[in-house]
Each structure stands twice: as C-alpha cells, then as structure tokens.
C-alpha cells in the first residue's frame, strides 16, 4: 500500500506536452487555493468590482506566464513550479490587486506577454505586447507638479522631492531619453545580439531604471520589476537577493502610502534600489562584453 501511494504521489504522468506527478498537481492546486484565500482575506479593504476581480484573475495567469518564461529559459520544471507558486502568493501582487485595488497587473501582464513572445523569437508580437503595456501604463500616470515622486523611493527621495518639481518633471524625462539613447547607441555600435538572457536582463534593468528617474512614480511603480526580479533570480539563482530586496522596498513603498509610515527611512530604500540597478546593469555589461567577444571569434 505504501509503495502504491508513493508511486501514485511521485509517478510522472503525461498530459499533452506537459508531464506532471500527483505531487505537482497537489502543489499547484494547494498554492492556487492559498493564493485565492490570501486575496479573499484582504479583498474587503477596498471596493470590489469587475475591474478588481479581473485583476485578481490575471494575477494567476501572469504567474503561469512567468512560470512558462522560466521553463523556456531554464528547462527546469521545479523552478517553473516555484515561480508560479511564489507569484501566486507574492505580497505586492496581492496587495496591488486584492487589497489596494490598483489593478496595475493589467499593464504588467502585457509587458510580460511582450517579453514572452520576444524570448520565443516572435519579435513583432513581443514589441506589440510591450507597446500595449507601455501605453496602458502611461494612461494610468498622473503628472504631479508638487512632488517628483508619488510614493516610489527613487532618485528624488535622495535629492529632494518638491523643489523644481515642475521643471524636473520635464528634465528627468529628457535625461531618461538620453540614457536610453546611449544604451541603444552602444548596442547598435557594438553589434550586440539580443539573446534570451540579455533580453531578460534588459527587461529587468529598464523596469528598475525607468521608475528610478521618471517623475510622479506611484508606490506601485515597482510591480513590473518585482515580478521580473523573480524570473531573473530563477534564471540566475545566485541573484536571489535581487527579488528579495526589491520586494522589501516595493512593499515598504505600499506600506508608506497605505499606512502613512515605514519603519525605515525612504531614502534608504532609494539607495537599495540604486545598488540593485547597478548590480543588474553590471550583469548587462558583462553579457554584452561576452557577446561582443563571441562575435569577434565568429
């Protein structure tokens, strides 16, 4: 009987292109249930409407999509499972949709759909997904002329949020454009091939960089980077500290807006984000150098 049960639990069964054991299905079902319960526990904090219900549903689809992304790049079933499991109970995702009702997951979903297609070699669909995500994100933004940040601990937490807000609103966008153009210029000149790995690194880097310098960033501006950091960590497990720290920063930003206070000063979180940005940027640099060297050898 024992052997039968053990066999039943661990035996791999094939369903179409997927192979599952009972344990896998059990974890998937239980963690999905936990995700649902977690959301139900906090859902009454804000009004629940179809928009919010839709966002909560998309949370799960996004978790699945990210698991696919991880599986595609690592061919590691357990990591893919873990990605889905963690994202289903990811605090910022739950807080964003179920608790706070911000529903940012709609635009984040399209950004990841874009990444998914891009990584699969379907460049145009990838670009379209990212473009839709960007447009949706921009449509949600409200430009403040009083404060340079609306809750996200970025550059302006360090240098001051209020002075010259109306001018820095424009200057920061120009500086960001300059930085992005410089990156594009280097990539074009060095003939860098956008590999799957480099695409993921770049995706995370931009998800960190843009909210760090863009004006009027709300507390949930780091949601894309939160999720991308987890996928990044699953691809390179040594980078486990990236999602860990980013999640702490991100959730503290939520807490600062929702509760009106944080236990640690916000500028500290800005410094942590700067360190993460630098760390991910250094990874891109190394990848580019390797890619260029390979290009020379070819």
């Amino acid at each position, binding site marked *: 009987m024992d052997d039968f049960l053990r066999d039943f639990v661990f035996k791999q069964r094939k369903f179409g292109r997927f192979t599952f054991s009972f344990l896998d299905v059990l974890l998937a079902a239980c963690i999905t249930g936990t995700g649902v319960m977690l959301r139900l526990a906090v859902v009454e904090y804000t009004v629940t409407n179809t928009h919010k219900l839709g966002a909560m549903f998309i949370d799960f689809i996004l978790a699945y999509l990210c698991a696919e992304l991880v599986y595609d790049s690592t061919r590691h079933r357990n990591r893919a499972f873990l990605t889905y499991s963690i994202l289903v109970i990811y605090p910022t995702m739950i807080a964003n949709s179920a608790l706070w009702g911000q529903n940012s997951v709609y635009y984040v979903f399209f950004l990841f759909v874009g990444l998914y297609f891009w990584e699969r070699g379907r460049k145009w669909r990838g670009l379209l997904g990212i473009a839709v995500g960007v447009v949706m994100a921009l449509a949600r933004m409200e430009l403040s002329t009083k404060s340079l940040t609306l809750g996200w601990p970025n550059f302006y937490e360090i240098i*001051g949020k209020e*002075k010259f807000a109306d*001018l820095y609103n424009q*200057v920061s966008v*120009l*500086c960001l454009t300059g930085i992005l153009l*410089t990156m594009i210029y280097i990539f*074009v000149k060095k003939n860098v091939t956008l590999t799957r790995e480099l695409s993921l690194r770049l995706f995370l880097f931009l998800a960190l960089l843009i909210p760090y310098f863009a004006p009027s960033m709300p507390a949930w501006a780091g949601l894309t980077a939160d999720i991308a950091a987890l996928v990044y960590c699953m691809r390179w497990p040594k980078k486990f500290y990236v999602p860990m720290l980013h999640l702490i920063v991100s959730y503290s930003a939520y807490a600062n807006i929702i509760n009106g206070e944080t236990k640690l000063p916000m500028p500290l979180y800005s410094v942590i984000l700067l360190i993460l940005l630098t760390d991910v940027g250094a990874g891109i*640099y190394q990848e580019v150098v390797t890619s260029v060297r390979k290009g020379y050898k070819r």
Partner: protein
Amino acid sequence: MNKFLKKYELDRADVLYLAALTLIGLAIRVILRVVTSEDWKVYWDPWISDLRQMGFAYLATDRYDYAPSFVYILWVISKLPINPMTAYKAIHIVIDFVAAAVMGKIVMETTGSKIKSFCTYGFMLLVPTLWAESALWAQCDIIFMTFLLFCFYYLIQERPNMALFFYGLAFAFKLQSLFIFPFLVILWVNKKIKLQHFLWIPGLYFLSIIPAWIAGRPLMDLINIYMAQGAQDVWSLSIKWPNIYQIIGNQYFLLEYAEAGTWLILGILMCVMFAMAQKRYRITSEFMIQMGLFFAILTPYFLPHMHERYGCVADILAVIYAMMNIKRFYIPLVHILMSFNSYMAYLSHLENQEPSIYYGVWAFVELGLLVIVGLDMWRYMTNPENQTQVVKAGVVTEERE
C-alpha cells in the same frame, strides 16, 4: 553627406546619436533657464546693473569679490541688448557643450574608442551637476573647469606649455583650480613639465587684473582678491560639502579649525607629494587623470569652508576615469549623486537642516571614494612594470625604460 561622414570617420548612428544628445542637452538647459537663483539676485544681477550704470569704472570699486576675468564677462553682458540672465546662462550653456566636447576628445585620446568618446560627450550633457550649475543656478564654475579640461587634454598630448597656459587661465577665473595643483608638481618631478611653464599661472593672473588696475582698483586689492574671497563665508567649517567637518562637527571651533584645517591639508599634501616623489614611474594618461581625481577629492575633503559645488572638478574627472577603467564605473555615479545632493540642499534652501541622507553619511562615502582612488594610484606606482627609476636617499640609483 557621405563625404562628410567619410572625412570624419563617422557613420549615421554616430551622427544621429550626437545630434540627439545635443538636442536633449540643449532642451534640458532651455527648460531650466527660467529659474532665478539667489546667487543671481544677490550678486550677478546687481553687479551687472552697476556695470550698466558705471561702465568700466565699476571695476575700480570693491563691490565685486570674484576674479576680474569673470567681471569682464559680466561687463560684456551688460552691453548686450538682451535679458542679462538669458545672456549669462547662454554663455555658460555654450561652455557646457565645449566642456563636453573636450571631455569626449580626452576620452578619445586616452582610450582610442570612438564609442566611449561619443558616449562621454552625451553623458556629460546629462550630468545633473553640470546642467544645474550653468542653466539653473547661474554659477560660473564651468569656465574654469573647461580650462582645466583643456589643461588635461594638452598634458595627455604632451604639450605642457599649452597645458599650463590653460591652467593659468583656469586660475585667472577661479581659486578652486588650485585643488589639483599638487598633481602638476608631481608631473614636474617626473619631468613632464618644466619650471618655466608654471610662469603662465602668475603671468596670466597678472594680465587678467591689469584692466581692473587701469580702471582704478588698487593693485594689492586685486592680487589679494582670492584671499579676501576666502575670508568670506566662514560661518561654517563646511558649507554643505560632505567632508571631514561634516563628521567631526562643522559649527564648533570655527576660527581655530579654519586655520588648523588649512595647515592640515597643506601637511597632508606635502606628505602625499613626498611619497609620490620617491618613485619614478611611467606617467600615462590614465595615471594623470587618476592623480587629478585624487587631489580633486582630497583637497576639499580637508579644506575648511568648502561650498556645495566644490566637488565639480572631481565629478568630471571621475567620468573620464570611469571611461578609462570601466570597473570604476561607480565612482562618477556616486560622486555626482553626492554632489547633486549638496547642490539641491542649497537650491532647496535647506539652510541648517540636513538633507534626506545626512552630510555625515555622504562624508564617509566621499572618504571611501578617496581611499579607492588613492589605492588605485598606490597600486599603479608600486607596480614594478610601471616603474622607470628608483630614488634612494635623494639619488637616482637605477634607471630603466
């Protein structure tokens, strides 16, 4: 078009990038030009008004405490039929672009990489301390910094006469050019500069004060103008610059530490120069920039009464240094952030309040950068591959190429 591209060995991507970054740099400055800073209201505007009324005779008065060379620029502005603040900022904005171009040239000379050179030009136009100084604050440090950059450029080209000519020009505009003076002494020790080249410094300064002297201001007054400048703003040992006084306390022993701090930095510089003079090593372009950066960080770190802008020389040298040594990319990143934080503390009228990250914390960060650059220099000097001669008891005992 193709001929032009071929002549300058450019491709379309280069031209597009340079054009786009030039436009972005210009747009940033055009947006910020509308700000009227305290310095403009309290100093430049009244000075220009006086120059308008009195003409050249204004130079005979003691109403200005900046180098006369700068006041001549204000005199020219007072003659222009346009808004003086627009004219003032426009001049400094143009110099921003010249400085960015010289930076690009220096990086081209030292690294041989066109991509790095163009990126330096583009990056310099985005550096917040640069656009904040000229377009927002209406400060004038970019003038002497540009001359210092020319000085580095000609030193790298092994044209010491031109280099010291530009250093002399920098000194004729701002006393802060002296921050990196010890590095010229080390170059002299290593036979890269001759003693007569140093004559440009007093020579150009003297030439620059002649018009003001002719106008009627006493010669001794003009010679001592930097001394008089140093005697102002003594209400704090550090005026928002994160240095040693932000760690030990900048509001106590104001008189005592002001004098002691000056002697202390002189002593430190003597020790550093003595240590550096004990060995003979190859003076490469990278080492020159390294030395410049080291002294640009070290001197304001111990000198009392340092203003929030006095990290500007280190800001730009750090960018060149990082372009030469990409592993040190974080030095400009951190230094510019620190500098800009100090700028914003002044521009936000924080007065005696601390910024969100305390000056004391930044002072430790600056110390860390100083140690990193210092160690890089030390490793270079002690690396046998870089040594050409060894000096023992003042005598050159061994020489090798």
